[in-house]
């Protein structure tokens, strides 16, 4: 590719301080900051939940059945007078635990399979790639339902593991493509010519350039895991006595809370959506970090319109480089990421 110079520039070991600020530049992106704040809030909630929950989520209070939000019960109560706010606070722990553990295991699997199959050549690489594709094509949810329904009392670790095993494949696929394109870059070949050991080539030369892809596959796995886990709880495959946001919705539906007792079903669903939104925002941030075109496209088009150019002119003018040229370091970034992101079918 024609980007060779840009590539070298971008990946030559920079002074330590620059490296450091670069690796945290994701924090300068407004979207990822909002997303990370949402996630931090729920993570803290998951940790300190049992101490701040106003009631025991199972405590039955027959005096206050089906009561709407009130000063005593901020989010109202269930058909048995259980405090819904406490159920949501306690339930956060399961949701976040399963999400992050599944994300972690899934990402480790994705990195192992993806980077290996991207780095090596020949039959081994093809086999690992085929394995990832098989896991992508096989519908995960029915399989998970079948597996978990075979256990009488599946614990959260088991569920997280099953979710990771069915959810690693997409990340592996993206990582494989990215590794394959890195493998033949000059700096990797130079490292190989220098006689660097394999672990160093992969761990020190390539891995830093894969971080964005790894992060985005982690976020994707966590999102899928949280959605699937709450779905399983809602369907009633996982124990209905174990509080998480899906369990709350399970009880809300089985007690006909829809549509009148909105305080029972709205908060739990919104919490799931909020965590999902936080993860999506982080992913937006990563996308824009990896592909600067996404970051600058809107700005450039708006700038052009202000100067009276129509949409049709925009591309021509921008491409000619006469207006709002992309800053040099961004251009280098863009070139570095010019490698197609997976998409051609193998």
């Amino acid at each position: 590719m024609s980007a060779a110079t840009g590539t070298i520039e971008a990946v030559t070991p920079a002074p330590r301080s620059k490296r450091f600020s670069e690796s945290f530049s994701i924090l300068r992106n407004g979207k990822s900051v909002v997303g990370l704040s949402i996630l931090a809030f729920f993570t803290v909630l998951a940790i300190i939940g049992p101490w701040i929950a106003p009631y025991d989520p199972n405590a039955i209070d027959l005096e206050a059945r089906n009561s709407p939000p009130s000063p005593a019960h901020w989010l109202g109560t269930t058909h048995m007078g259980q405090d819904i706010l406490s159920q949501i606070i306690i339930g956060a722990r399961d949701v976040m635990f399963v999400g992050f553990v599944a994300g972690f295991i899934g990402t480790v699997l994705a990195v192992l399979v993806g980077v290996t199959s991207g780095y090596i050549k020949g039959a081994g690489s093809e086999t690992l790639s085929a394995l990832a594709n098989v896991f992508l094509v096989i519908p995960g949810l029915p399989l998970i339902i079948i597996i978990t329904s075979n256990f009488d009392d599946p614990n959260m670790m088991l569920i997280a593991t099953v979710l990771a095993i069915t959810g690693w494949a997409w990340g592996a696929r993206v990582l494989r493509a990215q590794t394959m394109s890195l493998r033949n870059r000059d700096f990797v070949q130079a490292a190989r010519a220098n006689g660097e050991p394999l672990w160093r080539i992969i761990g020190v030369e390539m891995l830093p350039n894969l971080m964005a892809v790894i992060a985005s596959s982690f976020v994707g796995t966590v999102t899928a895991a949280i959605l699937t886990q709450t779905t399983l709880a809602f369907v009633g495959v996982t124990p209905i006595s174990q509080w998480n946001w899906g369990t709350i919705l399970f009880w809300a539906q089985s007690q006909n809370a829809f549509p009148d007792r909105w305080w029972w079903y709205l908060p739990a669903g919104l919490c799931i959506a909020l965590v999902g939104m936080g993860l999506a925002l982080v992913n937006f941030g990563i996308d824009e970090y990896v592909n600067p075109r996404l970051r600058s496209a809107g700005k450039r088009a708006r700038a052009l319109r202000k100067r009276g150019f129509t949409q049709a002119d925009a591309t021509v003018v921008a491409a000619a480089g006469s207006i709002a040229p992309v800053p040099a370091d961004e251009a280098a970034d863009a070139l570095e990421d010019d490698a197609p992101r997976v998409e051609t079918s193998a």
Partner: protein
Amino acid sequence: MRFFLRRAAFYLFTLWAAITINFFLPRMMKGDPITAYLARNQGTVSPEAIESLKILFGLNTDRSLWQQYIDYWGLLLSGDLGRSLSKGLAPVSEVIADALPWTLGLVGIATLISFFVGTSIGTYIGWKRGSKAEFLVPVTTFLSTVPYFWLGLIMIAVFSTTLGWFPASHAYDKTVQPGFNWEFISNVIYHGTLPALTIVITSLGGWILGMRNMMITVLDEDYITVAQAKGLSPRNVVVHYAARNAVLPQLSSFALSLGFIVGGTLIMEMIFSYPGLGLRLFEATLAKDYPLMQGIFLVITLSVLVANIIADMAYAALDPRTRQEEAL
């Protein structure tokens, strides 16, 4: 030709993997629900049914694993998926054959609508970079992070229970005679609108975002600049130059995410009591009807594979490079 051979090999491999997973699943599980069931219903189960259940669930412990595997394949090739424990020992293949058309209709049509609408909106937003239309991206992303089942329940609560515009469950009214006539078809469409709408709303975001991002990347390419410099109409540039190239990754991710989409949409059938495979799977889970669960998993996987093959053909039709490889 090489492209098609590789794809064919991949599909055969996936098919084999799915069937083999299905073979090992019950054998890895502890407990033995089938023997317990047979013991409870002694005399009512026909010998052939017992035989096929034994082969499916590995109860023939006197035979080697390899022989069990051969038997299992023989059973599948003869179209026997065992008997459903919860449906009065009806053959699993018949239970599935009744449910499959409903799932294909609902999920298939909703997914296609979502794909086409989402891709079109994404094309528009990508072309009009930085315009007001961009607000659709966060909105639809939020909708796609909402759990399917929750949105489905809220749709029922709003449009069915409160407003009474659409029915909340089933595929058609009990009073309507199934048949190929307008009365029946319109009734089916009427019942399918709400579940289909929910599926489209929750899955639209991914297609919009993917297409928008690809459009923005493609629009910076030199050939777009050339096309515009030649004075081609914007419409021509968008449709034949930009979108045509941007849609290719969209199509391959469509194929690969089908398994995920189908999984999610099965939940919709449970919510809307829609008589498809999702609802049957749900009932089978509650009743611990393992033969039915496994049969459904196998058929869903098969359907996803077939859909993948179709998506591959569309890809080959849109991308001349895959066809050129053929000529080489």
